[in-house]
């Protein structure tokens, strides 16, 4: 091993990416056919967020050393970082073909399967990795994660407790325990686990997200929403859409029922009202609770910039909604009621937009939200003028439809991460 190479490895270990890169380059000048060193340059570039160069370097490494698994692993890492998950999965598969007994590569594959919500396969692969190395952190993490995905939270918790017994200072295990406890509705354990994870690794984003969820559980209505959201997250896209379509069919059936029987009408109306409240909350709970957390110093410090932004928009929609609602109750004014609905829809649209990843998906859903709000305000204006040509009511219908369309789009796009 050349001195440059040795130094580069030490620098890599210390996460001094730029200096490590320089030294790997120097090592490559001495031996340009070293595919492993080339793969390391790709990983350095990836950590420096020079993703296109990282891809090129990793591809070159694979070409230079096609018989080695490490360059393939590096390439898979880069694809994963760029949200090119299918290519990542294919590439890590090739690495596993070359080195089937490497628990690290298997754990990586388990992670990709878990990302696709293929919980059973993820669990099997993680188990295989753990057979090779029972202390492999990544494999243990994905095993627990997959168990939760399969609805076996109690088993996951038991497994994590034993993993923490062996490695009590592992922030990933603590964070995983926190999410498992959240799944079980155990807020106290979740809070403690997330705080411990963050004490050990303050930059662990997954633990921070969990802590925010646990903090939000102090608001009574959020518990129900969180359980619903966690359940939805475990389902694939098709299953999620099937649930929404099923809800739509039930609504139609109930409406027909209410038309036939006067006695059932009151009951159906109550069901509709509750369903409306649930729907509003399922979209708006996330940004609304972030808004509430801003009044708590610890909560405010824990919110991400994205969550802070969402909560600002939520405040911008919730305040006029409350004012208009109060105005309607005081003055029985129809335009006030319409405005109330328009702002409630806007609040839901904030949730819909921020449910999507930044970039194109959020822009599309956000644009629908803005369009719905503008058309809705136009409707309020027209209705306030009591225009007899019914333009106002037409605009309101249009606004509601755009709003609904935006949320449907959000459902489709929410899991989509645009390639980098």
């Amino acid at each position, binding site marked *: 091993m050349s001195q440059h190479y040795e130094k580069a*490895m030490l620098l890599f270990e*210390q996460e001094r990416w730029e200096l490590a890169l320089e030294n790997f380059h120097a090592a490559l000048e001495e031996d340009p056919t070293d595919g492993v060193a080339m793969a390391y340059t790709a990983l350095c570039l990836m950590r420096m967020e020079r993703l296109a160069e990282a891809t090129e370097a990793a591809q070159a490494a694979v070409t230079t050393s096609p018989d080695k698994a490490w360059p393939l692993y590096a390439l898979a890492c880069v694809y994963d970082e760029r949200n090119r998950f299918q290519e990542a999965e294919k590439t890590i598969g090739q690495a596993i073909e070359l080195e089937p007994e490497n628990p690290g590569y298997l754990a990586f594959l388990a992670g990709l399967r878990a990302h696709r919500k293929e919980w059973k396969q993820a669990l099997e692969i993680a188990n295989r990795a753990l057979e090779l190395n029972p202390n492999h952190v990544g494999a243990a993490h994905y095993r627990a994660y997959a168990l939760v995905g399969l609805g076996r939270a109690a088993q996951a918790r038991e497994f994590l407790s034993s993993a923490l017994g062996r490695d009590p200072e592992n922030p990933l295990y603590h964070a995983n325990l926190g999410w498992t406890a959240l799944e079980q509705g155990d807020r106290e354990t979740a809070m403690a686990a997330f705080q411990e994870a963050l*004490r050990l690794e*303050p*930059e662990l984003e997954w633990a921070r997200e969990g802590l925010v969820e646990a903090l939000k559980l102090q608001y009574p209505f959020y518990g129900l929403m969180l359980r619903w959201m966690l359940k939805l997250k475990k389902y694939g896209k098709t299953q999620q859409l099937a649930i929404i379509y099923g809800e739509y069919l039930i609504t139609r059936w109930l409406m027909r029922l209410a038309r036939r029987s006067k006695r059932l009408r009151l009951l159906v109306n109550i069901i509709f009202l509750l369903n409306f409240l649930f729907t509003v909350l399922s979209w708006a709970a996330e940004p609304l609770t972030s808004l509430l957390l801003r009044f708590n110093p610890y909560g405010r410090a*824990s919110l991400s910039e994205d969550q802070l932004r969402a909560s600002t928009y939520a405040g911008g929609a919730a305040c006029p909604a409350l004012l208009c609602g109060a105005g309607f109750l005081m003055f029985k004014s129809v335009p006030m009621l319409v405005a109330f609905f328009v702002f409630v829809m806007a609040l839901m649209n904030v949730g819909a937009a921020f449910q999507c990843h930044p970039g194109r998906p959020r822009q599309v859903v956000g644009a629908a939200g803005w369009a719905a709000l503008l058309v809705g305000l136009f409707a309020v204006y027209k209705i306030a003028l009591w225009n007899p040509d019914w333009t106002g009511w037409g605009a309101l219908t249009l606004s509601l439809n755009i709003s609904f369309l935006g949320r449907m789009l959000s459902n489709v796009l929410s899991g989509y991460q645009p390639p980098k």
Partner: protein
Amino acid sequence: MNPNVLEALIQALAISPDNVVLRVQVVEGLLRAGRAREAAEQAPPLMESTHQALAVLARAHAALEAGDRAQARELYAQAIRLEPARVDEGFEARLEPDDDPWRVPTIGEDPDAPQSVPVHPDRRDRITLADVGGMEPLKEQIRLKILYPFQQPHVYAAYGKKIGGGILMYGPPGCGKTYLARATAGELGARFYVVTLEEVLNMWMGQTEKQLHRLFETARGNAPAVLFIDEVDALGAKRSEIQSTHIRIMVSQFLVEMDGIAANNEKLLVLGATNVPWNVDPALRRPGRFDRVLFVPPPDLTAREEILKLHARGRKIADNIPWRKIAENTELFSGADLSALVELATEGALAEALRSGRMHDVTPQDFTTAAKTLKPSTVEWLRRAKNYVTYSNADGSYDDVAQYLSQIKMR
């Protein structure tokens, strides 16, 4: 500087050889490009101007390039005397001779070789805290935590306060930790030893313990001295996160040396600087080691104004630049960011001069345009620090950062 711009400047200077500002730009550009001989050729007319220091500095670079280290060192000292802001750590490191008793030992030397008595006068020209613009609260902390214990140990002893040990300076990159360390050494009238990252890296690869021991011994032998370890996290990385045996041994040896300082060295002060205090082994923060910490925040308003003016010196800049206003609009900019701002504003004016063929001063508008394209580089660091403040500050290590974050409304 873009090589094409530099070539264009050289051509412009050939046409207008009396243009001092242009000559300054050319000489600085050539030095930055590592073309020392050409810089020295272009520099002599500057000897008659207010930019004499730059001319001497160019000669120092050329002398070093020609292999005459002694002359280079002499010229460099002269240049720094003329203009202290011309301090260049990288160049200083290259000036270190192989047989210099002041030099911090590096890899590959015989550690048992006898040390000769220092014969050179302190060649590093002194800068003091008075040379640091603004940053009054920080300077006060330096006085309390570093200067007074060092200067009046008996007072501290009377109150049962231990002195010695080390001080860890941390903060976003480019905010003047090295400059402050140098100013501190200047205040103390002590020798100033710098251990750069490159030297630490070399230690990784060699006889780690001996190298480190010799480094400390040299500094102790020449007390009063300040040993400044830049990027101290490289030398004192968290052992729990390190696989390499080399580095683990080095960290352990570093702890031993720091303990030695606490035990028997009143005249040696170890200053460590790091951008990532959370990567420093917790054992290094225990009493007697780096038990005092100093947060070096991004420059305050006065400091930013001073830095901007400093970097603007010797450039063709209009008289009506609203420095205060620019400083107000560059909150959270590091010293390096402010340097880049001046550079960018100058390049904007330069590009315009090359286009139009007419030289004009850098205007307030050039600064406004440049400021719009630059973002403060410290924000990313402060965001990271916020996580440590929020979740990992039970012992109060990051209280200063917490206070600063509240002050700038990031918390």
